[in-house]
C-alpha cells in the first residue's frame, strides 16, 4: 500500500519534472544539450522506478511511535524561523528547546531551565566566542 503510494507520487513528480523541463525557454543555444535534457532524463527515471514500485510493491510496515511528539517538535521547528528575528536568538531558541524538551518527556520546570541554559550557552559560544552573528532581540541580547 505504502509502496504503491510512493510509486504513484514518484510517477507524478517525474511527469511534473518532464513537463517543467519542456517549458524552459532557452535564450541562446550555448551547447547542444541545453538545460532541458537532464531534468527530462531524471523525470523518466522517476516515472520508471515509480512504475516498477507501484506495479510490484513490497510490504512496508508503517511504524510510528508516539507521533504526536514528533509533530510537536515539527510545529515548534516551523514556528521558530518566524520568531527568530522579532524575538532574537536567545528567546526564540529557548522557546524551541522548551517545546522540544516537553516533547522528550521533561517536566515543565526542568524543561524551562534547560531550554534557557541551552539558548544562552549557544549564544555565548557562537556569537561571543566564535564571532558568528546571531539575531539580537528587542532588548539587544
Amino acid at each position: 500500500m505504502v509502496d504503491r503510494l510512493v510509486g504513484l507520487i514518484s510517477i507524478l513528480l517525474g511527469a511534473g519534472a518532464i513537463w517543467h523541463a519542456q517549458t524552459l525557454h532557452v535564450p541562446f543555444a550555448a551547447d547542444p544539450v541545453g538545460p532541458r535534457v537532464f531534468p527530462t532524463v531524471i523525470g523518466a527515471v522517476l516515472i520508471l522506478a515509480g512504475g516498477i514500485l507501484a506495479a510490484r510493491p513490497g510490504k512496508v510496515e508503517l511504524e510510528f511511535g508516539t507521533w504526536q511528539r514528533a509533530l510537536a517538535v515539527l510545529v515548534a521547528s516551523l514556528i521558530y524561523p518566524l520568531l527568530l528575528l522579532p524575538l532574537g536568538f536567545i528567546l526564540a531558541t529557548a522557546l524551541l528547546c522548551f517545546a522540544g524538551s516537553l516533547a522528550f518527556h521533561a517536566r515543565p520546570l526542568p524543561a524551562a531551565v534547560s531550554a534557557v541554559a541551552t539558548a544562552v550557552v549557544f549564544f555565548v559560544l557562537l556569537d561571543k566566542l566564535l564571532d558568528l552573528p546571531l539575531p539580537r532581540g528587542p532588548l539587544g541580547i
Partner: protein
Amino acid sequence: MDAFAALLTGFQVALTPLNLAVAFAGVALGTAIGALPGIGPINAVALLLPLCFALKLPPETALILLAGLYYGSGYGGRISSILLNIPGDPGLVMTTLDGYPLAKSGRGAAALAISGIGSFVGGTSAVILMTFLAVPLARLALSFGPADYVALMVLSFALLGTMSEDKAVKTWIAVALGLLLAMVGIDGGTGVERFTFGSMELLGGIDFTSLTIGLFAVAEILVLAEGMVTGVVSRTGGGAGLSFREILFCVPAMLRATGIGFFLGVLPGTGASVASAMAYTAEKRVSDKGSFGKGDMRGLAAPETADNAAQTGSMVPMLALGIPGSGTTAVMLGAFMMYSITPGPLLFTQRPEVAWGLIASMYIGNLMLLVLNLPLVGLFARLLLVPAWILYPGILALSYAGVYAVSNSAFELTITTAIGILAYAMRKAGIPLIPLMLAFVLARLLEDNFRRALSLSDGGYEILFSTPTSIVLWLLAVLAIGIPAVRQVMQRGRPAVHEA
C-alpha cells in the same frame, strides 16, 4: 618514495597549531557525538558542517575537522552499541552482537578497550594503505574524459542499489529525487531558472548545508521524538580488564577485518555498514566454535576494525576520483565543493596541502583517538547519562543556529525543516536517504560532464560509450542494476517465507 615525501609535506600542514587543535577538537567531538545514541557519523559531520563555513576556516583546516569528526565518531559509536545495545548507525549493528553480551556479563570495560584497539588498528592501517593507493588511483583517473565520468557516476549510483536490503528501485527513486533537488536554481550553462517557481530565495538553489542538516539532523530528532529508541545502560566495570593475551588473540581477526573493511570502503557506493557485516560474517566463518554472539572478543574486534577501515577507505575514491564512497564522504565532497576545490585526480598536484594535510592529520587523529578512547572512555560513556530532553532539543537548536550562521536567512531554516519532513517521510516509507545525498552532491558534476561530452560530439549520444573505460564502467553498471533484479525474480519463485 614519492608518497613519503608528499606525506612529509602533509605533516607540515597537519602539525601547525591550528590544525592540531582542530584535529583534536574533531576527534574528541566526533567520539562524543558518536557516543550519543541514535546519532552516527553522518549526523556528526552534518551538525558541524555549517559552523566550518560560517567560521571561514581555511579548506584544509575545515576538512581536517570534518574528517576527524567522521573517523572519531567511528570510535564513539561503539560505546552506545556495547553498553546500550543501540547502534548509532547501521555500521554498528554488528558491534552489538558480541559487544552487548560482553557488557552484560560484566566485561564492558574490556569490550570497550578491545573495540577501541580494533578501531585504531583498522583506522591506522587504512590510512597507511590510503597513503600509497590514493595517488596511483588518481593517476588512473587522470585519463578519464567526460564520458568516463558520466559512466563512473552512474556506476556508483548503481552500486548503491545493490547494497540496499530493501528494493533497488527505491534507491533509484532516492537518486532521482536528489538529482532533482540539485536542479533547483539557475542553470550554470545557460542562465535559465529551473524549478524555482518564481521564488527569489530558490534562485541560488537549495543550499548544501540546509539539505544535510534537514536530512540528517532534523529528521533524526523527529524520529527520536517518537521514542522508538530506548535502552538501559549496562555497567562497564565489575569483570576482569582486558589482558594482553586477549589482544593478541584478536590480532588475526583485526587484520582480516582491515582488509575486508578497506576494500569495501574503497568501492564506491558501499559503506561501513556492509563492511562490518561482511567482516563479522567472515570472522564467524573462520573462527566460530559456538561462542560468537555470546560475547566473543573476536566477534567484537572484527566489525569494529572493519567499520573504521571502511570509513577511511571510503575517503580514497572521494579524494582520488571525486566520487564519494559513502554518505558521509558525500557530505565531505560537498564541503570541498563549497570551497571551490574539486577533489579528483588533480587534487594531489594542484592542492597538495589540502590532500596530504588531510591524510597526515588522520595519522595524528587516530593516535589521539587511541589515547582518548582507552583511559578516558568512561568519560564519554557518561554522556549516555545526559537526559534525552536536554540533549536532543540542544542538537536541534545547534542545527538551526548553524544553518542561520551560514545563510543569515530565517527562510533557509524553513527550507531545512521542509527537507527534514521529506526525509522523515522517506524513512517511514523505507526509501534510503544516503543515495539522495550522494546524488545531490554529484548532480552538478554529472550534468556538467554529460553536457561537456555531448558538446564534444555535437549532440551525439554515442560519445557516452566511446572509450574502453566508459564501456567497462557501463557494463559494470548494467550488471549492478541487473543482479538485484534477477535476485528478486528468483526470490519470487521460492516459497513466500523469504519475502521481505
